[in-house]
C-alpha cells in the first residue's frame, strides 16, 4: 500500500515536470505552428540560471592551501559569508529558490530575442526547415554553455531546511516509513501553480482570448485588425519562461549539465503529441499520465513479469493512445496532420 502511494507521488512529481515542459512546447506548437527543437535547450538554460545565480552568490575569497605546491589549491570562503556571517550562509543556502529572480527576466529576454531574431522568420517555412534551424540553435546554445560550465553536472542543492523528507505517513495516519522529500513536494505544488496560472491567463484575460482565437484561426484574428505578431512574440516569451522555470526548479533533483535539454527533448515531444496537437489541457493530462504510468511500470512486481517494461513504457503508451485516439488525448482536427 505504501509502495503504491509512493509511486503515485513519484508519478505525479515526474508528471509535473513533463507537463511543465510540454506546456511551453505546445504553446509554441499550437499557437505559432513552429516545431521547436530548441525547447529542451530552454529547459536547460533555466537550470543554468540557477547554477549561475549560485555561482554569483558564492563568489569567494580564496585562501591558498600552502601544503600543495605543484598547482594552486584554494579553500573557498564566499564573500557573503565573510560579510554577513550566518545571514550570508543562509542566502547562499537558498540560492536555488532565490534564483527565480534571475530566471524569469533572463528567460523572458531569451525567449523574446529568440522569437524576434530567428523564429519569426520561420513561420512561413516548412516544418522540416524549422526542425533544422531550431536543432542547430539547440546545439549552439548547448555548446556555449559547455564552453563556460564544462560537461560535468554541477551540484545545486535545495536549502538545508527542506533537504530532508516530509513525514507524509504520519500526517495521513499511515506508516511512518511513508516519507517524501520536501523539495519534490514543492516541485509538484509549483508545477500545479504554474499550470493553473497559464490556464487562468489564457482563459480570463483579453490577451489570452486573442491568443486562443489565434490558435483556432490565425488569419481571422489578423483580419479583425489585431496585431497577432506582437501577441505571438509574447506567447513565445511565456513559453520560454515556463520551460526555464521547469528547469530551474528541477536543478536540485537533477544536477544540471549542458546536455540535459537533449535528454528531455524527445520525451517532451512525445508528451505533447500524446496529449494532442494544439491542446494545452491534453499536454498537461498526458504529462501526468505518462509520469504515473512510468513510475508504476518500475515496480519490482511488474518488472519481474515484464522485464524491461520500465524502459519502454512511455513509448508503448504513446503507441497505444495514438492508435486508439487518432489525435492523441485531446488534439484538434487538422493541426500538424499533414
Amino acid at each position, binding site marked *: 500500500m505504501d509502495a503504491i502511494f509512493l509511486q503515485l507521488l513519484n508519478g505525479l512529481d515526474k508528471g509535473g515536470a513533463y507537463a511543465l515542459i510540454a506546456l511551453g512546447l505546445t504553446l509554441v506548437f499550437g499557437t505559432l505552428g513552429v516545431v521547436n527543437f530548441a525547447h529542451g535547450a530552454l529547459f536547460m538554460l533555466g537550470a543554468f540560471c540557477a547554477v549561475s545565480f549560485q555561482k554569483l552568490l558564492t563568489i569567494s575569497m580564496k585562501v591558498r592551501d600552502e601544503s600543495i605546491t605543484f598547482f594552486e589549491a584554494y579553500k573557498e570562503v564566499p564573500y557573503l559569508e565573510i560579510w554577513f556571517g550566518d545571514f550570508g550562509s543562509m542566502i547562499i543556502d537558498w540560492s536555488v529558490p532565490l534564483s527565480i529572480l534571475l530566471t524569469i527576466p533572463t528567460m523572458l529576454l531569451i525567449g523574446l530575442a529568440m522569437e524576434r531574431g530567428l523564429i519569426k522568420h520561420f513561420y512561413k517555412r516548412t516544418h522540416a526547415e524549422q526542425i533544422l534551424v531550431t536543432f542547430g540553435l539547440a546545439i549552439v546554445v548547448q555548446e556555449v554553455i559547455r564552453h563556460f560550465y564544462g560537461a560535468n553536472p554541477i551540484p545545486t*542543492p535545495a536549502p538545508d531546511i527542506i533537504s530532508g523528507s516530509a513525514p507524509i505517513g504520519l500526517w495521513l495516519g499511515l506508516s511512518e516509513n511513508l516519507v517524501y522529500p520536501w*523539495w519534490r513536494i514543492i516541485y509538484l505544488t509549483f508545477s500545479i501553480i504554474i499550470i493553473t496560472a497559464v490556464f487562468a491567463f489564457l482563459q480570463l484575460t483579453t490577451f489570452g482570448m486573442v491568443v486562443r482565437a489565434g490558435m483556432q484561426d490565425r488569419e481571422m484574428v489578423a483580419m479583425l485588425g489585431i496585431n497577432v505578431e506582437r501577441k505571438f512574440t509574447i506567447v513565445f516569451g511565456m513559453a520560454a519562461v515556463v520551460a526555464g522555470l521547469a528547469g530551474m526548479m528541477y536543478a536540485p533533483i537533477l*544536477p544540471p549539465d549542458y546536455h540535459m535539454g537533449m535528454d528531455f527533448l524527445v520525451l517532451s515531444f512525445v508528451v505533447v503529441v500524446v496529449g494532442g496537437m494544439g491542446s494545452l489541457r491534453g499536454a498537461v493530462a498526458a504529462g501526468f499520465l505518462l509520469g504515473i504510468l512510468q513510475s508504476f511500470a518500475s515496480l519490482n512486481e511488474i518488472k519481474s513479469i515484464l522485464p524491461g517494461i520500465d524502459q519502454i513504457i512511455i513509448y508503448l503508451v504513446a503507441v497505444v493512445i495514438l492508435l486508439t485516439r487518432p489525435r492523441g488525448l485531446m488534439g484538434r482536427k487538422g493541426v500538424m496532420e499533414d
Partner: protein
Amino acid sequence: MSDTKNWNRRDVMKAGAAFAAAGAAPMFFTKDAWAAKDFMNNPSNSSTVTLGFNVPQTGAYADEGADELRAFKLAVKHLNGEGDGGMMNTMKPSMLKGNGILGKKVAYVTGDTQTKSDAARASAKRMIEKDGVIMFSGGSSSGVAIAVQGLAQEMGVVFMAGLTHSNDTTGKDKRRYGFRHFFNAKMSGSALGPVLKERMGTDRNAYHLTADYTWGWTQEQSIKETTEGLGWNTAKAVKTPVGAGDFSQYITPILNSGADTLILNHYGKDMINSLTQAVQFGLRDKQVNGKDFQIIVPLYSRLMAQGAGENLKGILGTTNWNWALTDNGSQAFVKSFGSEYGFPPSQAAHTCYVQTLLYANACEMAGTFYPPEVIKQLEGFNFDGMGNGKTEYRAADHQCFKDVLVVEGNQNPSSQFDLLKIVKEVPRSQVEYDASIFGGDLGPYEV
C-alpha cells in the same frame, strides 16, 4: 589486409626493410624477415612515430576525455624529452631515453569517440588508415573499449585502454592487441571487502541499483560475490535504464524493503543523479534494523565527486589512483601535470599517461615497433614507480595487477580538489584472481 594504400606502402617498406633489419637485428627477423617487417603502419622509414588518442570529446564524459587528452599530450612531451620528464624519472625498470621512441620523435593525432562504439571505431579507423598510427589509446566506457579492442586485433595495431572498468575488457572479451592498466569491477569488490567488514560488520542487508548494461551487471556480480562472502544478505538487485535522469521510482521501494545498505552500480551522470536523489529521499538519515543506513558507490572518480557535491561525504568506494598519493611516481606526475595545467590530474589522466609510457618502453625493450614483439614485452612486464606500487601486466589476460585504493568522500576538504580521502591502500595480493575464471581468448600474435 588487402587495402591498396597498404600495398603502395608495402613496396616502399620493402626497400627500407633490409636497412632497418640490419640496424635493429633482433633474432626474430632471421626467421622470416619480409613477413615480419610487413606490419600495419610500420614507421621504419619515417622520422616520426604517430600515436592516436581516441577520447570522448563530446557527450557526458567530455570532461573526463579532455583530462585524458591533457595527460596524453604530457606523455608525448616527456617522451620527446621536453618538460621535466614526469614519471619517466621514477619508472623502474625503464629504457626510455627522452629522445622519442626508438629514436623517432613522437607525434600524435586525436579523435572523438562520442562514447559510442560506432563513432569510436570510425575514429580509430581514421587514425589507422589515414594518419598511420602505430598504437592508439583512450576511452571512458567499457563498451567502447571492447569495441575498439576488437578492431585493434583485426587491424594489428596495439590498443592501450584508458578508463574501462568492466571485467569483460580483460575477461571474456580480452584481445591479444588490447591492454588495460586500469583496475576492474572484480578488483573493486575484493578491495572493498575488508573495509566493508571493518566498518559495517558482517550482518547487512544490501539493495543494489544497477545500470542495465554489461558494465553494470559485471560490477553487481563482483560486489555481490564480495558482500555475500562477508555474510551479507542481498535484499534485491534492481536494474535501472541508462540515463534515466529521475531515479525516484527505483528509490522509493528501498524505503520499505528492510535493506540497510544501498549499493549504486552506476557511473558518471547516472551515479551523480541516483546518489543525489537517494540522499534527498533521506536514506542516509535512516535507521534500519538498528543500524545506520549506508550507501556505497563501488567505482569513484573525482569528476563524479564534483558533480555529486555534498552528497558524497563519507561514502565509500574504490578508485584506481588519486593525486594525493605521496609515492615518488605520483608526486612526479602530479608535479608535471599540475604545473602544466594548474590543477591536479584525474585517475583517467593517470591511467592514460602511464599506458603511453608503458607502450613506449615496451617498444624500446623490443627494439622494434613490430607489434607481436612489443606485445611480448608488455606481457608479464613487472614495473614500479608509476603510482600504484609494484605492478604486473599479467600475460594471461593483459590486466595490470596493482594496489587498489579504497576512498571515501572527504568530510572536510582542505581545497576544491580535495574531494576524496584515501581510506586504505589495499595491497595487490588481495585483489588478484585466477585469469581463467572469466574465460575468453586472447587470439593470435600475428594478424
